[in-house]
């Protein structure tokens, strides 16, 4: 059950980081959403053998993590979650694509190996980009931004409430698991025959709690819809920033800087 406790810890530490006040934190959520999305799309659009073209895109995480004062630890744990499957897919490439692409210092490098590196690089960059977005944006701002993007209120309310109750759910699950394991010392994890009542019990409790929350909401005037205040329009300066960011990113996507540098040399 270390996964559960890890999840709780990671969740809380991320919230703390999001409360910062750096220049990145203060950017309008729409600005950050657009730039992150653009970044991810461009990184992913490189073909499977690109490595040097991707390298300039490293500037984004380096700069933004420094400016945003985002610590390295959450990044590493997120990479640990995201990378394994990518490496598996890339490993398949190493197996199936063995034709030599180039020779580096006398060692033949296959197409497959190159694509493995490429996929890993892409995976790392996209994960970092999302982390930067989340680590510098507070949850209420995220909800309000979604409203601005015309996401239905019921869905936004759902997302924010799930976010709110995740730590409660994690805690209750951990508690019940500890109680269970105290009475079944030898088994690691829960026996299948007990899963029905274990999960079922917790789910029923969720339903009961949900009902009580509903009453609390009604008592304070809830009527099915909620008047979220949409986030303000990003200031002109940020629009300028977005345009320059887009221009730079697209240029970097189309022009291979490292090659340019080496041709000058």
């Amino acid at each position: 059950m270390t996964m559960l406790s890890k999840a709780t810890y990671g969740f809380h530490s991320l919230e703390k980081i999001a409360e910062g006040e750096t220049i990145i934190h203060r950017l309008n959520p729409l600005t950050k959403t657009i730039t992150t999305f653009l970044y991810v799309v461009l990184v992913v659009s490189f073909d499977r053998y690109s490595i040097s073209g991707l390298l300039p895109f490293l500037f984004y995480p380096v700069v933004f993590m420094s400016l945003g004062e985002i610590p390295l630890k959450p990044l590493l744990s997120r990479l640990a979650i995201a990378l394994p499957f990518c490496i598996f897919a890339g490993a398949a490439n190493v197996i199936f694509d063995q034709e030599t692409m180039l020779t580096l210092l006398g060692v033949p490098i296959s197409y497959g190996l190159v694509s493995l590196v490429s996929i890993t690089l892409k995976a790392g960059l996209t994960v970092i980009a999302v982390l930067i977005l989340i680590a510098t944006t507070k949850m209420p701002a995220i909800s309000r931004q979604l409203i601005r993007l015309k996401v239905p209120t019921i869905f936004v309310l759902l997302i924010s409430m799930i976010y709110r109750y995740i730590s409660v759910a994690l805690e209750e699950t951990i508690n019940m698991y500890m109680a269970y394991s105290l009475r079944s010392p030898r088994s690691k994890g829960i026996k299948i025959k007990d899963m029905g009542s274990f999960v079922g019990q917790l789910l029923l409790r969720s339903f009961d709690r949900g009902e009580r929350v509903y009453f609390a909401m009604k008592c304070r005037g809830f009527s099915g819809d909620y008047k979220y205040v949409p986030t303000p329009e990003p200031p002109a300066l940020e629009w300028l920033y977005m345009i320059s960011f887009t221009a730079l990113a697209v240029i970097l996507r189309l022009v291979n800087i490292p090659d340019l540098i080496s041709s000058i040399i």
Partner: protein
Amino acid sequence: MHMADALLSPPVGLAIAVVTIGAIAYSVNKIKKDESFDEKKIPIMAVSGAFIFAAQMINFTIPGTGSSGHIGGGILLAALLGPFPALLTMAAVLIIQCLFFADGGLLALGANIFNMGVIVSFISYPLIFKPIASKGLSPKRITLATIAAVVTGLQLGAFSVVLETMASDITELPFHVFLLLMQPIHLAIGLTEGVVTAAVLCFIYSMRPEIMEGALTNKSIESKSLKKVIIALVIFTILLAAGFSLFASSFPDGLEWAIGNITGGSEIEKSGTVYNISEKIQEMFAFMPDYSLKTNPEQGTSLAGIIGGTLTLMLAGITGVVINVMKKKKVAKR
């Protein structure tokens, strides 16, 4: 089954995101129009959604194998909340997992919600779970319905992942090898998940039967809208397939190579049936534009290119250091 961004190409990711957004909008609409939808459900969806998130991390031991499993939760939610609330809840959970727990990529959100939410709510629940369970709820029926629905949902979901990855042209893995890897594994996963989910549903039914009964009597999908759903799915599949290439030509090569390496000889006889099947699959996709295995790498692959790359890396590193030093100076000044 959470896909990462690196496995998808932008066109595929965006295309399926459009389909998913459509499904979500449709569900919100259905919920708004449904008179029997109690707004009480919203916090219930939220709290049980939060719990499903936690439940996905509960390990249960599979006897005899020494390994452990997890539940996905799609059918569980659908059986307790109804298919449309379940889709919204699943989508919300996946969004939170992607953003806050790095489980699944941003671009891949649409695909993940589709594979784990839309397929359950629009296919395996209405076409499999509901018909069986509607005939009368009993532990036997519930178990049968659940296992069937979970297995189907996971098979379709896994197949979907394969299609999406292949269409994105990221991996060299031949289509059928990928399938052969994904489908059996997910069959095993589906069976165990199905058994556990069935146990949970039976428990809940024994304690609070009205929850599942309420979800079933909801007039979720009628046959008219079902047709629409199927049509949408077909269009989506064609979009994916038509827009992007599969390596049709390399099919036989990859297969022979794989078989040759595994069996240590050219087993043309043995591979006959498999070869025929792969030919048939190939025919299916034959209308797609031809794909050449090695696209011309845009980047230079010479040593010089690597020097350029290293210089860029160094520049990036230096930038980071400079910013951090400047920040520390600022803090010291205060």
